[in-house]
């Protein structure tokens, strides 16, 4: 096999292989990569100024808390390890409950006007909120627990029908001390003071940082009824119940709170 001996085959093979490698290395037709997506969040704050004013019915510039469609919910890990144990407070409001107002109110409705708040969409420093819950109205859907062990565990007293109990043993209240823009989203960072007695001898105040979300104003109309506007605020924060003397091992140290407040201008 002279052909094999003169190495011409080797040369042909080297040339063919060389062609194959070069052809496969050509990047002429490689498609250009699309530009990388931006990691910067799109932050846009409007200029809405939403205030309760005198809460006069029919005044469309006055925003009222729609308590029926609002909620204050809590969640914590059952026994600190398992799934979530959740519940809500049936009675809550948005009023600054001063010491003088911390009494029993004989009424089935809201004991105080929900008017201790203001929201400036583009000027968070001017925004502020006050809120409260009646601890004994915690509702987990298990009446035996809600009216039973929960009462002693949370250091409060049972519900008295027809009475709104805003006394010191049954009141947890919050008050914002600072509201500012969240630099990484459209939300706001709210620093709040949470005051609650729990099972302690006297109420204690803890400063907590939470997240405030604004659900933008929208106009709604149903059937032939007059149109009106709505907006929402959601406050999320976490508290350590041991700070307030809660010793129950059925719940975790950390309790997540979500306040969903809906407002309308009817």
């Amino acid at each position: 096999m002279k052909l094999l001996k003169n190495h011409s085959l080797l040369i042909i093979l080297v040339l063919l292989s060389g062609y194959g490698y070069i052809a496969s290395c050509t990047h002429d037709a490689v498609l250009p990569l699309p530009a990388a997506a931006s990691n910067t969040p799109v932050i846009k704050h409007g200029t809405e100024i939403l205030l309760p004013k005198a809460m006069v019915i029919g005044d469309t510039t006055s925003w009222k808390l729609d308590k029926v469609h609002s909620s204050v919910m809590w969640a914590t890990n059952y026994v600190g390890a398992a799934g979530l144990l959740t519940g809500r407070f049936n009675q809550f409001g948005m009023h600054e409950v001063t010491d003088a107002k911390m009494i029993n109110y004989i009424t089935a409705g809201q004991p105080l006007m929900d008017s201790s708040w203001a929201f400036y969409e583009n000027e968070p420093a001017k925004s502020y909120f006050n809120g409260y819950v009646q601890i004994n109205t915690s509702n987990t859907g298990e009446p035996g627990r809600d009216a039973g062990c929960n009462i002693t565990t949370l250091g409060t007293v049972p519900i008295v029908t027809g009475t709104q109990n805003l006394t010191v043993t049954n009141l947890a209240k919050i008050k914002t001390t600072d509201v500012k823009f969240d630099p990484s989203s459209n939300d706001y960072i709210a620093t709040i003071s949470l005051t609650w007695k729990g099972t302690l001898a006297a109420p204690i105040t803890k400063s907590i940082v939470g997240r405030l979300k604004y659900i933008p104003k929208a106009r709604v109309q149903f059937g032939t009824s007059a149109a009106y506007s709505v907006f929402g605020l959601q406050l999320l924060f976490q508290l350590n119940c041991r700070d307030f003397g809660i010793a129950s091992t059925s719940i975790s140290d950390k309790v997540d709170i979500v306040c969903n407040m809906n407002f309308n201008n009817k």
Partner: protein
Amino acid sequence: MDHTFFAYLQQLEILAFFSGYAPVYLVVQRVVSLPGINESFKKRVQLLLPYTYAIAGTLFLGFELKNNFPNFSIARFMERVQDSFLFYWSLLPLACWVPVVRRYPFLSLLHSFAYLLVMIREFVFSGGNAYQNNHFTGNYMRIYSISMLAYLMILLVLGLSSLFYAFRSVKN
């Protein structure tokens, strides 16, 4: 070749097993032909080349059989054959185990040229746009390179084993 995806995959498998033999064979032949190379070493290396091809053929058969297990049956084995000519051609290297065939190493070279022709045919008639062709060619060249490396490894292992065996024979 039937231009289905499975046929393409089987063709790639076959090329991975056999396309690297021809360049390794020619380069080794060239190296051992260099002046100053001991004649007995040259003969020994030349004898090893058909063995590497036989080993590759055996590994290919093993690979194909493995793909048919469990529940092996001849019918299933035949069903998996996508390109009959190339497949049965790829079983022929087993003949290199036969001493008469092994005596003519160039036969293994001639046999392996079929795979290079298959690659050239695919380069020329692959169709598609330049972007696809680049990747297509690149893939074939990768398989070709891996195949060459595999043959070099087999040759190296065989060479070392042969040396070890020779050393032991001399010692005894």
